């Protein structure tokens, strides 16, 4: 499936969930977001989006926290699967956009591209639920279930490989922090 189209599906269903994006999704998500105040476009410390998401999920158990991770990014922080499973936040949904490449640097293949199973890794680490979708229809049809089940949940999205180079990550991340914190503080329980 196409990355942007998959994010449109997630955006239609996210409600007031917190969204943490990183790398490529930093540039696509703002095009589709319906609740930008609750979006944390996470730039820098590549691979750590899942860890920031874990912190948010622990701090705000009343909120759904959805991480839009990349496959190359997750490989840089693979231990986070174990850390997340150990803390077991029921409100964390961890999407992995599996395109098999480092898109932001021009499409070089990730190690062992196509031979890794992120759902198997997450299941073995102890995630409460793992799912994999290869097309938009399956994603659309299962989004309500994904959002309602007890996490932590890992959802692997099989994407068509792309070699376009996304712009280098945001340099304005600092500016969205006060807005995000204020919106999260205002936000009532889901």
């Amino acid at each position, binding site marked *: 499936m196409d990355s942007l189209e998959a994010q449109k599906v997630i955006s239609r269903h996210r409600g007031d969930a917190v969204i943490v994006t990183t790398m490529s999704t930093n540039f696509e998500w703002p095009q589709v977001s319906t609740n930008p105040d609750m979006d*944390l476009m996470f*730039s*820098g*410390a*590549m691979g*750590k*989006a899942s*860890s*920031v*998401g*874990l*912190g*948010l*999920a*622990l*701090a*705000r158990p009343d909120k759904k926290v959805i991480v839009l991770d990349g496959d190359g990014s997750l490989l840089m*922080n693979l*231990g*986070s699967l*174990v*850390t997340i499973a*150990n*803390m077991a936040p029921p409100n964390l949904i961890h999407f992995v956009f599996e395109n098999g490449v480092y898109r932001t640097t021009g499409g070089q293949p990730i190690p062992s591209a196509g031979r890794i199973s992120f759902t198997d890794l997450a299941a073995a680490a102890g995630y409460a639920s793992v799912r994999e979708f290869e097309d938009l229809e399956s994603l659309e049809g299962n989004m309500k279930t994904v959002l309602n089940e007890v996490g932590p949940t890992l959802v692997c999205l099989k994407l068509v490989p792309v070699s376009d180079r996304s712009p280098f990550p945001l340099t304005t*991340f*600092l500016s969205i*922090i006060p807005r*995000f*914190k204020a919106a*999260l*503080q205002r936000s009532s329980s889901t």
Partner: protein
Amino acid sequence: MTSKSTSLTAGRIVDELKKCGITHIVWLPDTESQFVCEAVIGQPDFTLVPVCREGEAIAIAVGLMLGGKEPVVAHQNTGFLESGDSIRSLALDLRLPLLLLIGYRGWHRDSPITDSAAIFTEPILEAWGIRYYLVETDEDVEKISLGYKEAHETRQPVVILLGGGYEES
């Protein structure tokens, strides 16, 4: 005459963390600081968050802070070096008041320092412009509150180097 304390006790550090309102300890065990975290296991005031690698700890603490909690990160100076990019791009770039308890491996007051982990710790903290305090004995423990206050006033990370021998209580 009151005798000067020569040791560092977990209870004093835990009390100081409580004074600061710390809610979470994001932790990777190390020889120098493990006694602190072991002392808070089961205490209702704190949630321990064990991690697999130190860079993770910084990012988890950032998420906790953005969600309104007051975490402290605890690991060794070796792990502090490993977590450099997370400290740079999260704690420093985002101007977040993160308090770190760093076990000061290789540090000795009275004998030559030969461990490169200790040799490089303070020069790197200084190069990054991160304020730090050395805590060797119970008499130094108030530096934790001082560091916490400074972190919030300056919106910068502050490091507490745990350099003392310690006792269980």
